[in-house]
């Protein structure tokens, strides 16, 4: 228990249970079809026939997106991830969620982390109502549980505030509406680890308030929440700890106020904070 006496700080430090342990994690992307001979059919065939040897010749480039990042997240924490565009925040979350393989190192988690992005709707050609049911069932809820929580999910998302939109296909939703419904579906279940990728930035102010409240609830029910955002205010409002990534490296890890102060100085005097 050396590390817990070392942290010294908060109350109940001895009872802190880790939920995510990242141990010197590297993530590398491989991109096909760059460099010489790009896109031509012969180059593609050559790559297939000659296998790995031809990778470099055919212009497969590697992008080292996350470099040797280590951290331990504890139950009940809300952790913000900040960094300039392309610094590896979303990549790191995907790796923690188990959606991207790590090149080196290891990520251990308690239960199954759930990643919540904003760009993809669940099933575009199905109605919001169907998506609520399918999302709930896919997360492992029973039919009864989904039925019991259905109204809560719809009310929380606020989809029906401007009319009966929940019975329309999701492709007719605005991106903000789709993101809100997705967040509402995922937040309906208690996750061990919930990761949110800029979701709070898309909703309107009243939805942001509701989701901040929901995140606090989730933390009380002993989960860990990760939040990627470029909105320093929403980080400040919801997170008590911040990881700052820059060029794939963990530049700083500490209490929100300290890290944000440094980050704002780095990005130019807090112009990002509203």
């Amino acid at each position: 228990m050396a590390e817990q006496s070392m942290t010294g700080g908060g109350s109940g430090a001895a009872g802190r249970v880790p939920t995510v342990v990242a141990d010197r994690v590297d993530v590398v992307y491989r991109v096909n079809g760059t460099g010489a001979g790009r896109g031509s059919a012969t180059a593609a065939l050559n790559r297939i026939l000659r296998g790995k040897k031809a990778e470099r010749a055919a212009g497969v480039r590697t992008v080292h997106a996350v470099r040797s990042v280590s951290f331990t997240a504890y139950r009940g924490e809300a952790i913000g991830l900040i960094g300039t565009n392309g610094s590896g925040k979303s990549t790191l979350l995907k790796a923690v969620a188990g959606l991207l393989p790590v090149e080196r190192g290891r990520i251990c988690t308690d239960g199954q982390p759930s990643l919540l992005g904003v760009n993809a709707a669940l099933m575009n050609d199905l109605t919001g109502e169907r998506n609520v049911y399918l999302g709930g069932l896919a997360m492992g809820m029973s039919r009864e549980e989904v039925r019991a929580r259905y109204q809560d999910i719809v009310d929380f998302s606020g989809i029906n505030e401007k009319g009966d939109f929940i019975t329309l296909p999701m492709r007719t939703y605005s991106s903000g509406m789709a993101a809100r419904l997705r967040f509402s579906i995922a937040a309906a279940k208690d996750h061990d680890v919930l990761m949110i990728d800029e979701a709070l930035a898309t909703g309107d102010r009243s939805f942001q308030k509701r989701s901040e409240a929901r995140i606090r609830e989730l933390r009380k029910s002993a989960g860990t929440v990760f939040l990627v955002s470029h909105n320093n205010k929403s980080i400040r409002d919801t997170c008590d700890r911040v990881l700052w990534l820059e060029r794939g490296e963990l530049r700083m890890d500490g209490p929100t106020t300290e890290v944000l102060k440094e980050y704002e100085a780095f990005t130019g005097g807090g112009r990002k904070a509203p």
Partner: protein
Amino acid sequence: MLDTPPPASASPGPDPTDPAALAARYGLTVSGARPSLPAYVRQLWARRHFVTAFATAKLTAQYSQAKLGQVWQVATPLLNAAVYYFVFGVLMGTSHGVPDYVPFLVTGVFVWTFTQSSIMAGTRAISGSLGLVRALHFPRAALPVSYALQQLQQLLFSMVALVVILLGFGVPVGPSWLLAVPALTLQFVFNAGVAMVVARIGAKTPDIAQLMPFVLRTWMYASGVMWSLDRVLGDHGDMPRVVLLALECNPAAVYIDLMRFALIDTFHGGQLPHHVWALAAGWALLAGVGGFIWFWQAEETYGRG
């Protein structure tokens, strides 16, 4: 008071805590690791309501943009049968020699379409549902199985049309019609298995969706969907007996002929290969179990990239 996290320095040297030991002490598991096969089966079983709900939702969404809506569920297979009847029955006159040619043809087309569309849907089962795969965690085998189930539901609509056609052409209802149930069950297991195989390939190499229609068309012509393999190939003296036997024992031909045997009174048991039920069950087991295990072996890679 804020919890001050340990200063997680990137330098591994002086760190007194070993992350691996910490993870082990609290029973953390490696993220994105593949579950064991029994655990995977349990997870899939726990998601059975998702599988059925997904299939039904996809089926109803399919024609949601059409004005006639769900009428197309029955109209599409009927039109399909009409086209094949026009080409093979009227223009080419393949029918000579086959009694009850129209029921023979329509049964073949519907049963074949079930396998064909299950496989085509399987190629896109993962790559076409990336939004779902990347957002939520569930055993990915639920997707290809669900797509196969959607095609089964589609086939049940077609069967309504088929019964109308059969009765219209004066095929008598008999107790052998009950054999359609085990035949369809076995075919569904086979289709779901193949869908899982192509889903794994399609997740890594989406090109298979371009290639598959050609493979499937070749397979269709080799399976006696529009003609009786016995009569067309049996008449060729130069065709080796082994080739004919192989064609007759291929899974598509087996399931098609079983259905014809079940539904059409003039289609006799003598036209079936020997041990046909064992063949049907064998193909279903091979594809179902083999496809499932093969799909599971790449479980942790789906949705990445």
